[in-house]
């Protein structure tokens, strides 16, 4: 069943076309990666799907709700973990989670239940009373994803979730993301090829705002005739220039 249906989605800024007539369908429970070099249109696509930017033309339907006409309903279905760490620095880990539960209008009982659940899931137990601004980058990212999940979203947008993290922390965060697979639909943008290959059910490659190819990592490698996914990505993007 399709959770996200994108048709002709376009975003223009003056004389630049950031996203150009994107058509895509993403299934329920799928972990879908959006790849592309800088300026490919990944973040703009995420911004439009999360109702942060209005499309110039086209539309997308999230669980059947239009991002153009029903942005209020869409916002109650989604959560975003932005590229930069988005935590309130002077609030404790617990207070950050309470903030997100509060802005979604959760009752006290539900808030407590969700905080307990996410604290367990992301191993935040020992740092709940620490200020978020004092945490390491890895812990802030974990908290950031936990904050996104507290609203029980149907769709989660992860924009470069492991950017700038060391290999060990990245691997731990991958485990957290893997644990979510199948439970909610996840749209992931990343510059790390191994991240996309390791985590995703399907991958889309974008360049200059256009979709070049969509498929599983194996399908994309077979299409490019390369053994390594990174080589396949580079080949496909370079050939798209010609």
């Amino acid at each position, binding site marked *: 069943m399709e959770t996200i249906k994108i048709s002709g989605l376009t975003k223009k800024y003056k004389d630049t076309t950031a996203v150009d007539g994107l058509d895509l369908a993403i299934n329920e429970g799928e972990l879908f990666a959006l790849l592309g070099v800088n300026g490919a249109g990944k973040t703009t696509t995420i911004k439009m799907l*999360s*109702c*942060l930017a209005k499309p110039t033309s086209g539309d997308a339907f999230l669980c059947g709700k239009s991002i153009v006409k029903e942005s*209020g309903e869409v*916002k*109650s279905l*989604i*959560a*975003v*973990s*932005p*590229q*930069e*760490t*988005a*935590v*309130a*620095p*002077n*609030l404790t880990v617990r*207070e950050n989670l*309470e*903030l*997100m*539960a*509060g*802005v*979604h*209008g959760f009752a006290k009982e539900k808030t407590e239940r969700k905080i307990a659940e996410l604290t367990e899931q992301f191993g935040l137990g020992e740092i709940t009373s620490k*200020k978020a601004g004092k945490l390491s980058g890895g812990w802030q990212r974990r908290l950031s994803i936990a*904050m*996104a999940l507290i*609203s029980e979203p149907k769709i989660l947008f992860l924009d470069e979730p492991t950017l700038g993290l060391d290999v060990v922390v990245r691997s731990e965060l991958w485990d957290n993301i893997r644990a979510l697979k199948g439970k909610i639909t996840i749209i992931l943008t990343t510059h790390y090829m191994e991240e996309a290959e390791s985590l995703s059910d399907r991958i889309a490659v974008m360049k200059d705002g256009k979709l070049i190819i969509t498929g599983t990592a194996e399908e994309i490698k077979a299409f490019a005739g390369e053994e390594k996914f990174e080589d396949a990505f580079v080949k496909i993007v370079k050939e798209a220039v010609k």
Partner: protein
Amino acid sequence: MKLKAFSSRTAKEILRDPLNLGFGLGFPVVLILLLSAIQANIPVELFVIENLAPGIAVFGLSFMTLFSAALIAKDRGSAILQRLYTTPLTPKDFILGYTLPILPIAVAQCIVCYIFALILGLDITVRLLWSIIAIIPSALFFIALGLLCGSVFNDKQVGGICGALLTNLTAWLSGIWFDLELVGGAFKKIADLLPFIHAVELERAVLSGNYEDMFPHLYWVLGYIAVTFGLAVFAFLRQMKRQ
């Protein structure tokens, strides 16, 4: 519920910053103590507590602009606002959530200021209570100015404009330290067109019990609230759309 959660976060972010507390509450208290000490050692009546206390109470409000603007500018610079924009919070929730929690902080600052004034010899009368209530319009103006500056300027600009320029404007163009009639000319005319002197005169009128002297100062302050708040809402919504 949503507004309460966001407002609570605003209050915590401000009150947990030691610099905010140091400057916001500490600096006006230091000023009132210092100027009262000077008054005790000079033969002329320059810093009489009945005139000084309402002035310092208003001057302290300029820090509310700084708190409000700094928080909004920081939030805009980080991704926290982007995250919150994808939640069911409405533009009204954001504007009220940045405005309302600062009002009790402003009133608390005014109370601290008058407590020190009492220690320094200000009479205890019911007019003190009215003076605390009368600070609310001026507080709203300074908070709205913070919303405007935070929506327009970045973190660093806010430090310079609200931290240095505004505090100096409030200090020099409000008649707190000296009678502006003594300077006269263009300086006095400019001061009369700005809200700072009217906020101070309004507070002084209430504290002295000369309630008829509240006017036209109250009208000036209310006018500035309307204009500043209107501009602030416009600027906030504009940056929200840009994000």
